[in-house]
């Protein structure tokens, strides 16, 4: 079996990468995980590791630009001549189908004339569809319809909602009566458009308690009944980090016919062109930049900055002082600690975790954990033990 080493996609805007240097010799025996080649995009240099043990043969020269998905080299189990490798590759019909490599211009998107006109008519910016391939009007409609349904956006699935704000909360139930409830009450008790009517919590010890004048009504499983009794319109989750809990609340709210409420601190600044899906808590002094999309049910602690043209998935949580630069993509279920800086155009995969104090310069794959070593340098753990 011959393994192909292909150029990875490292940012939405690089459709080809420059071969900077090879870190192993032509024909060298390499171990699995050994760094093979350095590739440079517009912003970063990445090292590609060998997926298997074997013998490496380069297929490109230093200084060439290789399209994303192009073959940089191969790893063979035994020594082979170049022509044998080519023959073997051609012969190997049973090889797994490779991921398709669409040929698109630099932005990775192409609009039909009708779609381009439609964008114009609706005052939408083409940039936000980068990487979406062929876009027709019906595709645009479908994307925007998805957003209207409040469907979560996974990274690179690339559903791009139009800018928008959730509707009014009116009578709100809060799910979770822990410390987060205090943060949320701090926001909503000042909000003239919201009336918090009660809290729900599964811990019986908290039932019948009152927090800042609001009663804990009962367990979560009675949401449906309690909402009807108390004529609730919406529900909001107050537990920042328990993602499964946040997801559960979302499902129960829908089943109970409730809206997801949104809590945005009066001191937060939200750009006119940013889009906020319902269900999120946005703490004091947060900033959501222009054209940034925030998925549903996120919990942003104070001083979270998502700069312009970010795509943030659902159920994302941040500690205080997390800041992304422009064009960052954050998958759903990503957890940020506190005091984190993210470089432009970085892509953070679904359910990744970023430790406090990290400076994120490279992409983080889904389910991976970016830690800080004892020397302060970042360490990327490929996958959580139990994603």
């Amino acid at each position, binding site marked *: 079996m011959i393994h192909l080493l292909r150029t990875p996609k490292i940012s939405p805007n690089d459709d080809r990468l420059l071969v900077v240097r090879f870190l192993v010799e032509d024909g060298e025996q390499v171990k699995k995980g050994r760094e093979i080649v350095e590739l440079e995009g517009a912003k970063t240099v990445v090292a590609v590791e060998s997926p298997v043990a074997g013998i490496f043969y380069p297929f490109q020269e230093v200084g060439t630009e290789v399209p994303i998905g192009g073959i940089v080299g191969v790893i063979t189990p035994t020594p082979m001549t170049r022509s044998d490798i080519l023959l073997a590759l051609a012969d190997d*019909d049973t090889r797994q189908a490779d991921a398709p490599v669409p040929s698109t211009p630099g932005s990775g998107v*192409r609009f*039909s004339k009708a779609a381009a006109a439609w964008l114009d008519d609706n005052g939408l910016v083409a940039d936000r569809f980068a990487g979406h391939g062929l876009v027709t009007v019906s595709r645009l409609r479908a994307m925007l319809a998805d957003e209207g349904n409040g469907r979560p956006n996974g990274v690179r699935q690339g559903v791009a909602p139009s800018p928008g704000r959730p509707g009014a909360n009116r009578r709100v139930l809060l799910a979770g009566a822990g410390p987060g409830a205090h943060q949320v009450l701090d926001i909503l008790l000042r909000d003239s458009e919201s009336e918090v009517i009660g809290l729900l919590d599964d811990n019986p010890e908290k039932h019948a308690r009152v927090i800042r004048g609001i009663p804990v009504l009962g367990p979560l499983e009675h949401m449906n009944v309690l909402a009807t009794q108390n004529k609730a319109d919406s529900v909001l989750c107050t537990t920042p980090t328990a993602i499964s809990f946040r997801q559960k609340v979302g499902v129960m709210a829908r089943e109970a016919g409730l809206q997801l409420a949104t809590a945005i601190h009066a001191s937060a600044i939200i750009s006119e062109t940013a889009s906020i899906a319902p269900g999120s808590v946005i703490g004091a002094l947060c900033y959501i930049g222009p054209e940034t999309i925030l998925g549903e049910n996120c919990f942003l602690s104070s001083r979270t900055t998502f700069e312009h043209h970010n795509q943030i998935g659902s159920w994302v949580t941040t500690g205080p002082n997390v800041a992304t630069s422009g064009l960052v993509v954050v998958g759903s279920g990503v957890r940020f600690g506190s005091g984190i800086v993210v470089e432009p155009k970085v892509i953070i995969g679904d359910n990744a975790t970023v430790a406090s104090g990290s400076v994120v310069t490279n992409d983080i794959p889904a389910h991976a954990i970016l830690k800080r070593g004892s020397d302060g340098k970042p360490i990327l753990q490929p996958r959580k033990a139990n994603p």
Partner: protein
Amino acid sequence: MNIPASCLRQAITIRLVEERLLELYALGEVHGTVHTCVGQEWSGVAVCAALRKGDTIFSNHRGHGHFLSWCDDVEGLIGEILGRSSGVCGGWGGSQHLAVAGFFSNGIVGGMGPVSAGAAMAHKLRGGGDIAVLFIGDGGMNQGVVFETFNAASRFDLPLLIVCEINGIAQSTAIDTVLAGSLAGRAASFDIDIVEGDTWHPEALLASAQRAVTQVRSRSRPVLLCVHTFRLNPHSKGDDLRPRALLDDYRQRDLLCQWFAAADGDIHTLRESCRMRVERAVQNALAAPMACGIETPFPARADVIWRPAVSPGGSLVTRLRNGWEKALSGDSRVLFLGEDVADPYGGAFKVSKGLSSRFPERVYNMPISEAAMVGLGVGLALSGLRPVIEIMFGDFLTLAFDQLCNHAAKFHDMYGGRFHVPLVVRTPMGGRRGYGPTHSQSLEKHFLGIPGLQVAAIHHRLDCEAMLSRLPGWIQHPLLLIENKTAYGLDGAAGVLEGFVYQETGGLFPTLRIHPGLQPDVLIFGYGGMLVEIEAAMDRLFVDHDVLCAAIVPTMLHPFDMDPVFEALRETHRMVIVEEGAGFAGLGAEVVAMIHERGVGPVRIKRLSGIALAIPAAVSAEATHLPDARAIVGAVLAMMHGR
């Protein structure tokens, strides 16, 4: 008389076998018919006595005697004619289609001519001194391909012995009523020497045959051995209109008849031993199981697996040329023959430019004899070489149809699956060059569906260089390779549709899929030169009309793999089929039929093809005649709007 005992025994055996076969026929044991050579036996006996192992015989419908003289396989012959699996071809060939090592017969009068010349050419190239032999009746000497064979055999100094069995009759027609000039004159005009003999003087015939064979072998030149003889029995069964008296007359002259009249003596003893042998063979054959099918030469394919398509850079013609160069340098069995293929001309479309300079002994010009050229290729391929025959324009393939359909395509199956014809015939099709009605057609549909004949159509995105370099090692069955005139100049990497995904299936002849990455509205199906039009249409449909199309572009047209089409159609349920040739009963029709048979569900299909008239030469008229991107766009839009 001084006839070797082995020859005597052979002649007697042949007579007894055929007489016994006629008895079995009368008893209803023979399915079909038998052409016996009763009265002509000495011809085969004499010629084969002069041959040696390594020589190759090509025989005709009246070939039992030739066959037994060559290999003496009485059991194999009788088993074959009685339709038993013990037959030499497992019962698939029957009386007229026999094959063992060094022997092949076929039922097309004259058709084996160029095939025998091809085998002679292979012998000559190998340089071992072996020769090829063609047995042909005097009726066959009016067949055009035989003249083509004479010409090629003589001009290329091929070691070919042509044995003409002159019995004065063809089926029911007296030869002198249909033959102008003379047989000798035919040979003379091609500068072919003649040796004569007859079956009433076997000793002299043995000597003549020996002389002819020696001459062919030593001079590497064709010789015509004229064997005067008489067919004592009807053409096949009960179809003899000749006067009784004439037949009786010849029966009395026939040596075997005379000998068999004696009730004792050496001949009688010999005859008895031969008779017992024949009888044993008959009983064994009758006890053997009836013939059954052989395994299909084209295995069913696995699931569709898509991988990135290559889209190679450089013009198609350059890549074809490079591919053939690799094929020639990588495999010494490869020969590249055709009209005007040699340098400095390098072929009408320059595919072979430079090849004859590099491989002068394997790339050369052929006379304008399409049938003989392809037949020659069949003989070369049957001899283990890897001939590639260029037909200058696809329109001229019709002249070689018999060689492709009745020879190249049949041999593997009808000889019981034991012989292969790894022949490539390649040719450009298609219009848009103003060449007019006889140089612009896409005739490949006429060659689709012939069992045993593979037909592939190259398009400009195919990595044909890699394909051709591997072709000699891959090919087992004849392959007709269709190119397209307008595609020769196209760069395989240029103009790849932005935003669409190009993928292909595996193998040497992958199916290309162009996909928008999203749910397409309509599927477009086409092949070869139509790819350019399909791509242009897909682009226009997306940009101007907001419609997403996918395309399926096969290269192997027969045997045809429908799975990629089924898979793609499940996505769209709408399909436009586009073919440059006349659409009636074409590949598109077959695809529609297969979709219907499979029951893919409700689908809407439109077909586009060339208009059913001769292709006009005038540029404006030609343009409206052939389907193009505009027509595809129109068909897709009509379909989108429910029309």
